């Protein structure tokens, strides 16, 4: 019965989350957290662009607050979530909010975050598809697909030859199949990002082994 929409009892009883909306609050926090994981550090500047329903109702749902909380590294159940803008200010992150209520987007709940630090810039688009489930659909202008529930590696590494081969050989040694793969970079020769969807969530040892690869900066795993 793989085609059932809901497979876990915790899709129905859960998530534990800060209210008021699973799609507009919890989903937003998860989008923010993925942005933080991929960016790898606290941005100095964060631009939050909101579209459609996110643009129209974000204030009442705390969508803006939840996105910031996620970028600060908070989970959906973090009781500090409502204080996120204040905490961001204290940590020196400058935030601007840009709602686009009249503009069409690919999904009613779409947010595009632009994170900056020094001369680094990263753009990520995320959509909240309901019940706290999200997908990341764009990274630095490239179409990608990261969804909660699909085991996905996001590997940040130096843009030098041989990195893809090293990462995939670690996976193959552990008999882990790659379902889909995307590679993008900030600029030639700088930081590059590898996104790998795999078939199994059991990757604990693999993560540790990947971290030993020289010139690899960070390994994030989403499940």
């Amino acid at each position, binding site marked *: *019965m793989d085609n*059932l*929409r*809901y*497979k*876990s*009892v*915790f*899709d*129905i*009883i*859960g*998530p*534990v*989350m*800060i*209210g*008021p*909306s*699973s*799609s507009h*609050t*919890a989903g937003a926090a998860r989008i923010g957290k993925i942005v933080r994981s991929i960016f790898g550090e606290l941005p100095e500047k964060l631009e939050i662009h909101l579209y459609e*329903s996110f643009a*129209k*109702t974000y*204030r*009442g*749902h*705390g969508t803006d*607050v939840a996105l910031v909380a996620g970028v600060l590294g908070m989970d959906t*159940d973090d*009781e500090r*979530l*409502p204080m996120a803008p204040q905490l961001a200010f204290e940590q020196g992150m400058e935030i601007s909010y840009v709602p686009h209520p009249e503009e069409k987007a690919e999904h*009613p709940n779409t947010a595009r975050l632009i994170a900056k630090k020094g001369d680094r810039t990263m753009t990520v688009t995320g959509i909240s598809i*309901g*019940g*706290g489930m999200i997908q990341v659909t764009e990274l630095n202008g490239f179409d990608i697909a990261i969804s909660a529930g699909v085991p996905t590696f996001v590997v940040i590494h130096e843009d030098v030859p041989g990195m893809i081969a090293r990462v995939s050989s670690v996976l193959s040694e552990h008999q882990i199949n790659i379902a889909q793969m995307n590679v993008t970079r900030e600029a030639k020769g700088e930081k590059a990002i590898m996104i790998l969807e795999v078939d199994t*969530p*059991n990757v604990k040892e693999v993560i540790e082994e990947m971290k030993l690869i020289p010139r690899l900066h960070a390994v994030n795993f989403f499940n």
Partner: protein
Amino acid sequence: MFKNIEELIEDSKNYSSVTELMIAIEMEQTGRNREQIWEMMEHNLETMLDSVKKGLVGKKSLTGLTGGDAKLMDDYIQSGKALSGDIILGAARDAVAVNEVNAQMGLICATPTAGSAGCLPGVLTSAIKTLGLTHEQQVEFLFVAGAFGLAIANNATISGAEGGCQAEVGSASAMASAALVLAAGGSAEQAGYAIAIVLQNMLGLICDPVAGLVEIPCVHRNAMGASQAMISADMALAGVKTVIPVDEVVNTMYNVGRSLPAAFRETAEGGLAQTTTGRKIMEELFG
């Protein structure tokens, strides 16, 4: 995994309880062991009970639109004058408490959604009092509710944007009712009838949140969902059956939801959201 409620009822006969069936499926689907799964559910239980307590304090929401009703109901219950009885009104009060916490950006457990998160804890706290449920039975209550909720979600929808409030508070109320039936010693079949009774009574309920916020009428709808769950559980335990089988009722909820105009599916473009006052509130909040 069971495809619908009829299969869930049949499959549960191969296990000592619906809870054991659900845990076995969860282990198979996620690869987690029994202890991990049990602990996750305990954490959800703890969150729910905490959110009830927090809601009884009577704080206002971010917008000031909701908050304080659970406290009013609590004081009224304490006065001993409740016409519908302490048990049912107590369930409604605790449901309101959870949704008021939700509107305050407090911590809740979505069951199945944040907007309908009050129904199940409301019914559970009442069951703890009337049936004297142990901690273990309280956790089982959530597994049972989750199992029946899965069967509803996979054959209909639990999203207000897709199926209106009948899909959110309707599903929450239905799964709470089923869990109550089993907690009271009823059969899985009777739990199925309780779901059918709840959903029959919820058909067509629209999702029309004022200013698009999970406040008006969501908070009060959870009171209705909790009380409906209790009445329907009692009816099923009394031996009342529905002529239309439960899975047909679930499918009907889906079909009715799909045919609701978009204005009545969480867009704030119809119903209470478009009353004179509803529009005024939207204007004041968002300009």
